[in-house]
């Protein structure tokens, strides 16, 4: 597509529930990134995919967070047993490849609110 698409744009859930957030990157972009932006802060790196594999998941805060990209295109970020502290905007970005010269294009984000 023309840009990075993220769904849902807003998600409200209750503490303890399971949540999935979807990212559809720009067609042909092999690198895909997830970031989390808490209120009043800059985005923080969560995980990066090169193709289908997670090349670096060092930013995932704990084992309740998991992400997949089974066909090397669409990615899903999965959060189990949500907690109020998980409330944030989750941003997805893609780039043509992971080299430093390539710019990341960001989606508008999925705002997650855990009550």
């Amino acid at each position, binding site marked *: 597509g023309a840009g990075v698409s993220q769904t849902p744009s807003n998600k409200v859930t209750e503490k303890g529930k399971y949540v999935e957030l979807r990212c559809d990157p720009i067609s042909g972009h092999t690198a895909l990134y997830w970031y989390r932006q808490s209120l009043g802060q800059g985005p923080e790196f969560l995980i990066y995919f090169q193709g289908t594999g997670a090349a670096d998941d060092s930013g995932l805060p704990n084992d309740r967070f998991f992400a997949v990209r089974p066909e090397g295109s669409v990615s899903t970020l999965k959060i189990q047993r949500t907690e109020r502290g998980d409330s944030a905007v989750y941003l997805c970005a893609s780039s043509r490849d992971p080299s430093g010269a390539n*710019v990341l294009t960001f989606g508008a984000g999925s705002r997650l609110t855990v009550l």
Partner: protein
Amino acid sequence: AQSVTQLDSHVSVSEGTPVLLRCNYSSSYSPSLFWYVQHPNKGLQLLLKYTSAATLVKGINGFEAEFKKSETSFHLTKPSAHMSDAAEYFCVVSDQQNAGNMLTFGGGTRLMVKP
């Protein structure tokens, strides 16, 4: 390791006056540096990037930034602010040795433009 410090969390200017948003970085290797802008409820948009070519970088909407290695700074400037410039601005560093091109964001500077 890489890090970014944005020295001002809020900057207020009058329309038509100059804008200065300050950024200092830390990087173990040759950095790539970026400025992104985030308008409310919209995705992050790239303003400009530095990747070891000319130290004075021109971006979109009249913004520019100068890379100063001796000062480890990458301040963003614009000669004359417009009302539409009001937004959150993020200074971002990527270590060029960083194979995955993961970005490290500063905490952001909220620019307010008064009529």
